[in-house]
């Protein structure tokens, strides 16, 4: 059995930031990631970050990713790519599928940074080819350079829906509309303004009723949406070949459940999530979480949660004195609190505070 001091599952922003922090403090870190390159969703984010007062405003996600990779390499973090963590078993054993074989890695500390997954929306025709998550469409255009279709209907007007709609336009698709069940747009105004200027109509107070097609989506039926119901006789048919669904994300928690970590349903954070303490440690001693698995937020909070976990792990391994560790952690916590200010962040800040105050035992 292979032994490692710290095993980080998932090399996205949280996992890489945590690894860099822990490695700089002297911990031996292994990152396992199922993708062929690390960086998680950052490499899909060709737009500039903004909206938070903290650092990274004005920088593109892809550039943040490049910097993380450089730092990861410089501080000697071991990275296994094309390596999926397929299970976590008793005594902190992580099973990793690598080169077609399952390798068991015994870890002193495990940090889970598995991220989130897109929520599905069920309507007649939802399994037809051409109906996909907005994140999947974003991967196709920004990573794989494949246009998923020519005429796209976006369902959901949050940041993901609106940003991906804009990137689909940039990639050469026609976005025929953005459907939103609520009476107002969910995304930041500056993102919404960009797609509006490009002439994309918003159908507020509307929902998707059905996808029509035989072997592929050909049309979408949308209708007015009131009190949880489609208003009769308001249905419209639009010709589309792609329907993107952007109705939120949820923490990707399978490995945490498998490890026996205590969970709870926290609506503000995307649903069921592993509970953690002020050090990002869960109810299972030595098992930590950071990033979207610990509640869906954004890349900046994910990186800082990762750093927080990284310091806490180094501290618990005795690589850093308690005073120094506490000071570092407080600095990161203050930055997280700053990131969670404003109308979008307040609810998450309150939820996180509630989780930490409750404790994991």
């Amino acid at each position: 059995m292979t032994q490692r001091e710290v095993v980080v599952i998932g090399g996205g922003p949280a996992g890489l930031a945590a690894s860099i922090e822990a490695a700089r403090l002297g911990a031996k870190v292994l990152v396992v990631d199922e993708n062929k390159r690390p960086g998680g969703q950052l490499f899909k984010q060709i737009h500039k970050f903004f909206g938070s007062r903290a650092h990274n405003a004005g920088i593109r996600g892809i550039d943040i990713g490049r910097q993380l990779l450089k730092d990861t390499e410089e501080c000697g973090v071991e990275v296994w790519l094309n390596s999926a963590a397929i299970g976590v078993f008793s005594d902190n054993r992580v099973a990793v599928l690598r080169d077609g074989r399952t390798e068991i890695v015994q870890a002193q500390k495990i940090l889970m940074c598995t991220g989130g997954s897109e929520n599905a929306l069920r309507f007649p025709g939802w399994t037809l080819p051409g109906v996909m998550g907005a994140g999947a469409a974003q991967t196709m255009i920004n990573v794989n350079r494949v246009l998923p279709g020519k005429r796209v209907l976006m369902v959901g007007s949050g940041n993901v829906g609106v940003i991906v709609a804009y990137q689909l336009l940039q990639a050469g698709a026609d976005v025929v509309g953005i459907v939103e069940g609520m009476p107002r747009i969910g995304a930041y105004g500056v993102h919404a303004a960009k797609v509006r200027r490009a002439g994309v109509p918003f159908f507020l107070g509307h929902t998707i009723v059905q996808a029509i097609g035989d072997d592929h989506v050909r049309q979408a039926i949308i209708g007015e949406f009131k009190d949880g119901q489609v208003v009769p006789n308001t249905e419209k048919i639009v010709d589309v070949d792609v329907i993107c669904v952007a109705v939120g994300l949820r923490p990707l928690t399978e490995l945490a459940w498998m490890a026996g970590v205590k969970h709870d349903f926290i609506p503000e954070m995307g649903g069921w999530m592993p509970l953690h303490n002020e050090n990002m440690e869960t109810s299972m001693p030595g098992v930590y979480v950071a990033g979207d698995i610990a509640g869906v937020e954004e890349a900046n909070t994910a990186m800082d949660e990762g750093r927080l976990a990284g310091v806490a792990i180094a501290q618990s391994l005795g690589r850093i004195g308690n005073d120094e560790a506490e000071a570092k952690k407080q600095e990161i916590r203050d930055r997280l609190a700053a990131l969670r200010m404003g109308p979008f962040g307040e609810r998450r800040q309150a939820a996180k505070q509630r989780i930490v105050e409750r404790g994991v035992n």
Partner: protein
Amino acid sequence: MADWTVDVAVIGAGVIGAATTYFNAKAGASVALIDSGDLAEGTSSKSDGNILVCDKLPGFDCLFAKASQDMFEQLSHELEYPIEWRQKGSLFLMETDEEMEIAKKFCDEMVACGIPMRMMDHKEIKEDEPLLADDLPGGLETACDGSLYPMGLCFGLAFQARKLGAQLLLHRTVTSIDKQDGGFVVHTTNGDIAAKNVVDCAGVWAPVIGRMVGLDIPIQARQGQILVSEQTFQVGRRKVHEFGYLMAKFQTDGYKRPVSEAIERNGVAFVFEPTASNNFLIGSSRRFAGEDISSDIEVMQAIAERAIRFFPIIADIKVIRAYTGVRPFTPDHMPIVSATPVPGFYIAAGHEGDGIGLSPITGKMIADMIAGNELMMDISPLRYSRFTEKAAQ
């Protein structure tokens, strides 16, 4: 004042409890089926669906299993819930010439008991299952074996019993049992049930119920794990398992299989079962690990290693899930289907890995005992007192 008054209170809503409820209700008794959780929430949902005679010992063991197996054809028509009963037979695989010899003797004894078994040579097994490994000396076919959907069977029996008037009193934990004139009062976390008779069908947890009436029931949890494959082309057409399974199950023979230490340590024997959904289940393991039902990677790897030994093609097929359950194990590998020194208190538990297959006959026997009918066969080997007699000696 009890909340319900019935002829028979059945404790434990796994397949044994569901069958006991069904056959009692069918016989005209008023029945309550009680469980702390839902239907088929314990061992019955962590099992495979094999209905086997081939892995029983010659004599009473195989005759009892055969009588139960013979009841499924009718049950599959009687129950309205689809139980996916398929009777394609089963194939034991032998790995060495020594196993061939043991199997031949076993086959003769089983045939003498009336079990439709026959030896197959290397050529015959390869024709039967073309994807088998090329170096296996032969097999042993049991024509009458079959498989079904175990949770479906459980639901089918319980729902049909409800149609016959039985009450499903789920999500209430039995806290104590009082003996009173003419029967019992079963106290639960949500209401009391007065019953003339009580049947302990709680499987692994039967000893907890037994203690409530002062009975010591020698049942222990024996863990088993199963791997689930992705949907594939047909790897094997029917139930296939290694003859060494018998030895792993009974751990009695002096014979030692040529296997790795992890396989030996975890009591792993190859069992393959295609399902109605075009995927397959692979087992099996046997070890004592308390009531732990978390899957362990070492056991999973040992199961996979053993499966690839017999069907090399499995190395290229993905496992999508694994699950673990605990079998109710008795010291002599035989269930307890019996009255007890407490009048009106019966035990139907301890079926180890055979609860699904033995559920119909178990339910029928208990119903006949309670009704005072003559039993369809002598089941004295399953009496509870065999353990107390032993202790007294």
